[in-house]
C-alpha cells in the first residue's frame, strides 16, 4: 500500500519533471514553494560572499562632469499622486519637513532649508537599474550619517527604513506607498546621502523631490525617491510584506549589490 503510494508519488513527480524539460516548462516549477526556497538560498550566499569580498569602506566609482548622462531615465513613480505631497510640491516644499524617528534618542523634524544648511556631499555616480540600464548623475545632499548621528541611534537599532510619498502600489492607502530599508553598514557609508540636488539643480520631481536616497553600492530600487520619513528599527520582518521594501515584498532581493 505504502509502496504503491510512493511509486505513484514518484511517477507523478517524474511526470511533472519531464513536463519541465523545455525552459518555458520551468514556469510550473517557479510556482512551487520548495523550488522558490531552493532558489532563494542563493541570495544568502551572494550576500555573504559580497560582504566578505567587498571592504565596508570601499567607495563606488565617482565620475567626471563630462561623463554625466545627457538624459537620466526617470523610472518608477515620476509624479506622486498624493494630496499632501502635491500641496508641498506646489509651494516648493517650503513647509515640508523630514521626520527622523523610531529607535533614536532625539527624534528630528528638519526643513529643506535646515537640511541644505548642513554639511553636504557631492558625488557623480552611476545609477544601476535592476532592469539593466545605467545612467550617470551628480548628486548633492546630506550624508545620512550626519542625520543619524544627530538623532542618536539607540543600541538596538539595526536598520534604517525610508517612508516615501509615492503610492507605487496604487492601493490608495499606506499599503501601496514606496518604502525601503538599508542595514547600518550602508546607512553610515560615506556615499549614502539624502540628495536634494541633481546635476547642480534642485532635485526635479520626477527624480524624487524633495529628497532622494543614494546608496551607491546597490541597485536603483534601493534609492527611494520622495523620502518623507526615516525610521530606525530593530527588525524589518514586521513591516508590511516583511522583506524590507516595496520591490522586495514583490520578490526582489533586499541586498541589491548585484
Amino acid at each position, binding site marked *: 500500500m505504502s509502496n504503491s503510494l510512493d511509486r505513484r508519488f514518484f511517477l507523478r513527480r517524474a511526470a511533472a519533471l519531464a513536463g519541465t524539460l523545455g525552459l*518555458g516548462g520551468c514556469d510550473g516549477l517557479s510556482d512551487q514553494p520548495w523550488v522558490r526556497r531552493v532558489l532563494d538560498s542563493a541570495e544568502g550566499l551572494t550576500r555573504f560572499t559580497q560582504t566578505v569580498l567587498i571592504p565596508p569602506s570601499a567607495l563606488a566609482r565617482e565620475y567626471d562632469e563630462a561623463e554625466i548622462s545627457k538624459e537620466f*531615465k526617470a523610472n518608477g513613480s515620476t509624479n506622486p499622486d498624493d494630496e499632501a505631497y502635491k500641496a508641498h510640491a506646489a509651494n516648493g516644499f517650503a513647509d515640508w519637513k523630514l521626520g527622523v524617528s523610531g529607535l533614536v534618542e532625539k527624534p528630528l523634524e528638519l526643513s529643506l532649508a535646515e537640511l541644505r544648511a548642513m554639511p553636504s556631499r557631492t558625488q557623480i555616480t552611476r545609477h544601476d537599474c535592476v532592469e539593466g540600464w*545605467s545612467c550617470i548623475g551628480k548628486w548633492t545632499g546630506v550624508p545620512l550619517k550626519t542625520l543619524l548621528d544627530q538623532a542618536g541611534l539607540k543600541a538596538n537599532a539595526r536598520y534604517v527604513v525610508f517612508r516615501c510619498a509615492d503610492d507605487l502600489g496604487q492601493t490608495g492607502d499606506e499599503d501601496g506607498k514606496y518604502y525601503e530599508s538599508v542595514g547600518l553598514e550602508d546607512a553610515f557609508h560615506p556615499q549614502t546621502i539624502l540628495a536634494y540636488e541633481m546635476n547642480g539643480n534642485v532635485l526635479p520631481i520626477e527624480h524624487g523631490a524633495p529628497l532622494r536616497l543614494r546608496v551607491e553600492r546597490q541597485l536603483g530600487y534601493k534609492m527611494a525617491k520622495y523620502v518623507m520619513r526615516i525610521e530606525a528599527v530593530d527588525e524589518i520582518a514586521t513591516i508590511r510584506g516583511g522583506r524590507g521594501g516595496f520591490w522586495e515584498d514583490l520578490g526582489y532581493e533586499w541586498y541589491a549589490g548585484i
Partner: protein
Amino acid sequence: MHEPRTSASGDSIPRLRRRLDALVGPCRLRWVSAVEHRPADTVAQLLVVKDEVSNRLWELLALPLALQPTGVFGLAGSDDEGYDARGFPWTVTLPGHRDLSMGRRWHFFFAWAFVINGLIYLIYSFASGHIRRDLAPTEAEIKHIGASISEHARFKFPKGEEAKRYNVLQKLTYLLVALVLLPLMLLTGLAMSPGMDAGYPILLDIFGGRQSARTIHFLAAGGIVLFVAVHLFMVLVSGVWNNLRSMITGKYVVEPAEETK
C-alpha cells in the same frame, strides 16, 4: 517598461505580427559605461518593430546593426491572452512570462552552480595535468590544423590511435570555452554588480564599464550556446551510441585505422 497587449480576437498571427507596433521591450547592446538613450552608442539592438514580411527572422537594417525579431523571434502569448512582443520568445526565457525578479532568482542560483562547478573543474584540470596532457595542442597539431578543418568539414572522423585523443580543433575549442568564455561570463557578470564595482573597480577598467560588460556577457553567452549546439551535433554525427556508452562505462570502441595504399 511598457507591456502593450494586443487583443488577438479573430486575428491571424501574421496579421497580428504586422500590427505589432514599434519599440517594445528593446534589448540593447551598448559599448559605453553608462549612458542610456544614445542611439550612437548602440552596437546592436534587438527590436520588435513593425514589419511587412512576417516570416522574416531578422533583418539587416542599417548601421548600427539592428536585429529584428518579428514575431517568430519575439512574439509571446496566446490568442486568449493577447500577444506580447519581446526580444526573445517565451520558450527560451525563464520564466516564460515577464517576471524579472523570478528570472534573477533562477539566474543567480545557477550562477552559483556554474561558479562552484567551474572552480572544481579548473582546479582539478590544472592539478591533474588534464589541461597540459589532453587539451594543450602540440606544435605539430597546430601546423596541420588546415587538414583537420577539412576533415571535420567532410565529417571524416579519426580512427585507430588518433581516435583516442582529442584532435586539435576539439582542443582549441575546449580551451577557448573553459579558459576564455566561461571565465569571461563570471567576470563580466561581476562587473555589472554595483557592489563588486565598488570593491574591485578594476572590473570597470577591464571591460570599459557596466554596459560594455553587459554586452560582452550577452555575446559570450551566445558563444556558449553555439558551442553546446555544435558539440551536441558532433556527438550525434561521430557515433552517438559509442560516445554515450564511453561517457557512462568508459568503454570506447575504436575503429581500426584504414590501410593507406
